[in-house]
C-alpha cells in the first residue's frame, strides 16, 4: 500500500520552520519508506491559513500542517499556557524538553489526540519581539500604545501591560506600522524580518523569554496517521523528530543574525538577557499574568512548565 500525504504550511516559505523542515522531512520519509509515502506540499497558506489549522487537520482537509500551538486555544485551552511568561526555558532547553517521551510533549500530544490530531513535532521559533515606532525599554513605555497582537495570549499580556491590543490581518500590519494605525506589533522575529517590519519601525525589544515564547508544531490528522501500518507511523515520527532537531538547531544558531538584521536597518534594538535588571523589570510587570496563569491552568501542567 502506498500513501499520499498532503503537507501544508502558512506564512513565508522562507521561514526556517518551513525551509529547514519540509524538504528534509519529506526526503527522509521518502527514502526510509522506499517511496511508499509520497507528499504533496503546499507552502504559503494556499491550502489552509494559520487560524483554520485546528479544524482543517482533524477534518482531514489536509493531512499534515504547520501550526502554532496557541491556535488550538479554541479547542483545548491548556495550550495558551505556552504563550504565558511562565515559560522561561531557552530555545536550547526546549530542544531537549519538547520531544516525544518528554512530559510536556506527551501532555500536549494527548490533548491534541483528543481533538483528532497527532503532534508530529514541536519546536520553539524563539521569543516574540515587539517592533515599535516609539522607544521601548521599560514596561511603562507600553502604556496606552496600540499594539497589534497575533493571539489571545499575547492580547492578555498586552492588556496586563496597559497597552491596547489591536487585531488586524497579517497583510495590513506593515502599512499599519508605517502609517501609525498601530504603534507597534508583537510577533515572531523571523516573521517580522521576513515582512520587513524594520523598514517602518524605529525600535525593537527582544525580551528573550521575559514575555514567554512561540511554540510551533507540525500536526497530523489522527485517523490518517492510524490508518498507516506501524512501521510507516514510526518512519514518519522519527523523520519528523530528526528534521525538527536540525531545524531547531538552525533557529538557535541564527536567532542572533535576525536580531542583527533589524539593527543593521537602523532600528534601536534592546535585548533583555535573563538575569539582568531590565529582564527582571518585565518579569515583575507580568507577575500578575503569571499568578493568574498559575490559578487558571491545571496544577499538573503548571508544574511541568515551571520545573526544569
Amino acid at each position, binding site marked *: 500500500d502506498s500513501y*499520499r500525504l*498532503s503537507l501544508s504550511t502558512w506564512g513565508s516559505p522562507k521561514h526556517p520552520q518551513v525551509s529547514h523542515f519540509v524538504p528534509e522531512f519529506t526526503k527522509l520519509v521518502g527514502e526510509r519508506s522506499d517511496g511508499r509515502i509520497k507528499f*504533496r506540499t*503546499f507552502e504559503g*497558506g*494556499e*491550502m*489552509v*491559513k494559520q487560524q*483554520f489549522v485546528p*479544524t*482543517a487537520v482533524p*477534518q*482531514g*482537509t489536509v493531512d499534515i500542517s504547520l501550526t502554532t500551538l496557541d491556535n488550538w486555544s479554541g479547542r483545548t485551552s491548556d495550550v495558551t499556557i505556552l504563550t504565558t511568561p511562565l515559560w522561561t526555558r531557552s530555545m536550547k532547553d526546549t530542544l531537549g524538553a519538547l520531544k516525544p517521551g518528554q512530559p510536556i510533549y506527551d501532555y500536549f500530544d494527548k490533548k491534541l489526540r483528543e481533538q483528532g490530531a497527532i503532534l508530529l513535532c514541536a519546536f520553539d521559533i524563539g521569543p516574540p519581539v515587539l517592533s515599535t515606532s516609539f522607544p521601548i525599554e521599560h514596561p511603562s513605555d507600553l502604556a496606552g500604545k496600540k499594539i497589534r497582537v497575533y493571539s489571545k495570549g499575547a492580547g492578555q499580556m498586552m492588556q496586563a501591560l496597559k497597552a491596547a491590543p489591536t487585531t*488586524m*490581518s*497579517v*497583510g*495590513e500590519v*506593515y*502599512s*499599519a506600522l*508605517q*502609517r*501609525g*494605525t498601530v504603534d507597534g506589533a508583537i510577533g515572531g522575529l523571523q516573521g517580522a524580518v521576513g515582512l520587513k517590519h524594520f523598514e*517602518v519601525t524605529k525600535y525593537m525589544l527582544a525580551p528573550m523569554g521575559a514575555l514567554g515564547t512561540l511554540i510551533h508544531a507540525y500536526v497530523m490528522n489522527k485517523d490518517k496517521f492510524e490508518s498507516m501500518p506501524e512501521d510507516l507511523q514510526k518512519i514518519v515520527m522519527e523523520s519528523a523528530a530528526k528534521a525538527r532537531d536540525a531545524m531547531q538547531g538552525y533557529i538557535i544558531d541564527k536567532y542572533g543574525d535576525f536580531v542583527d538584521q533589524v539593527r543593521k536597518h537602523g532600528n534601536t534594538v534592546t535585548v533583555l538577557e535573563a538575569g539582568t535588571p531590565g529582564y527582571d523589570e518585565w518579569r515583575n510587570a507580568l507577575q500578575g499574568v503569571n499568578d493568574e496563569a498559575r490559578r487558571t491552568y491545571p496544577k499538573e501542567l503548571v508544574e511541568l512548565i515551571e520545573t526544569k
Partner: protein
Amino acid sequence: MDLIDWAGYISIALLFLMMLLAVPIFVSMGLAAFAAALLIDDFQLVARTFIQTVWQGASIFELVALPLFILTGTIMQQTDAGRDLFAVTKAWAGSISNSLGVATIVACGIFAAISGSSIATAATVGLVAIPLLLEEGYGKTRAGGFVAGGGTLGIVIPPSIPLILYGVLTETSIGQLFIAGVVPGIIMLTAFTLVVYFSRPQIKGTQDVSWSECLSLTLRCSGVLALPIIIIVAIYTGIFTPTEVGALSVIYLLILGLAQQRLTFGKFVAALRTATATTGMLFMLIVFGQYFAHFLTFEQVPQSIAHAITDNATGVWAITLMILAYLVLGTFLESAAMLLISIPIFAPVAAAAGMDPLVFGIFAVIAMEIAQISPPVGVNLFTIHGISGIGLWTLARGVIPFILIQICMLYIVYFFPEIVLWLPHSMK
C-alpha cells in the same frame, strides 16, 4: 495515469459545461469541484473538506469592505448624486468641443472615486447622461458606448471591489492596491476623455455657463465632490483601513443625504436592498469560487498550467498569452468569477514574468474592465441596455475605442510598472 491526476481537469470541464448550460455560476463552481473530488475520495472526506473550505473562504475580514463599498454606490444612486456630478462636469466642460461627452467621462471618473463598482458607475451616470447625449445628436452607439466605457473606470480608480477580491486572493495589501490604481486610473480617464473629445461629430458645447455659476454649482455639490478626496487621503495616509473607509463613507453619505433632505427611509431601504442582493450574489461567488480554486490547487492544476505557460513563453509573450486568455474568458465570464478562476493560474506566470503583485493586480483589473464591456456577456453592456434600451451590438460597437485603450494599457502597465508602483511606494 491515475484518475487522481485527471480530477482537476475534469472539474474544469464540468464547470464550463454547467456554466454553458446556464447553471448559476456559484452552483457550477461548487458542484464541479465537489463532483470531481468524489472521483478520488470518499463522500465523508469530500463533504468535510467542502464545508471546511467554505468556512475558510467566508471568514476573511477584508471581504467586509465589499458590502460597504456596494452600499456607497446604491446610496448615491438613491440620492441622485449622478445628477449632481453630471451637472458640475457639464458646467465646467462649458463650450469645448464634445463638451457633453467629455462631461460624461469625467463624471464617471469622479463617481468611480467613490464607488467600487463599474456597473454602479455606468448606471448612475448613464441614467442622467444618455438622454442628454441622445438629444444632442451623439447617436446611440456613442452615447451608450461612452457611458459603458467610462463606467469601467469604477474598478480601476479606488475604491474597487475587484481589487479587494484580488487582495484577498493574493494576500496583497488592499490599501496599497487602492493607491496603486490611482495613476493608471487617471491615465485611462485622460485617454478616454481624449477619445471622446476627438470623436466625430465635433458637436459644439451648447451652453456657456459663467464662472460664478460654475463655482456656485460646484459649491452646492461639494458634499459629494469632497468624498473622493477624503477617501484617497484617508487610505493614502493610513488613518483608516480600507474597510473602515468603506464604513465611514456609508455614514458620510447617510448624513449628507439626510442633511440635503434627499434620503428618505424608503430610499435608504431601497439602497440597502439592492446592496444586499448584490452582496449575496458576490458572496456566494467568492466563497464557492475559492472552494473551486482550492480543489484545483490541491490537484496542483494551476501549478501545472503555470509551468506549461512559463516553459513555453516568457516576458512579453507570456503577457500576451495572458491578455488573450483574459479576452476569451472575458467574453462570457463576469469579473468575480474570472478573477477566482484566473488568479491562481496567472499569478505565478506574472511573477515569473517579473511583475510585482501590485502591478499584476492592476493588470488583472484592467482585464476585468475589458470583460465587462466585451460582448456577448458584458455586465456594463447589460446595464446600459437595461436603463436605455440601446441594443447590445450597438453598444458593443460604441466601446471598441475603449477596449483598444485598455489593451494598450495592459502592455503599458507591464512595460512601465513605475506607473503603478510609484504612488504606493511613496506612501512612507
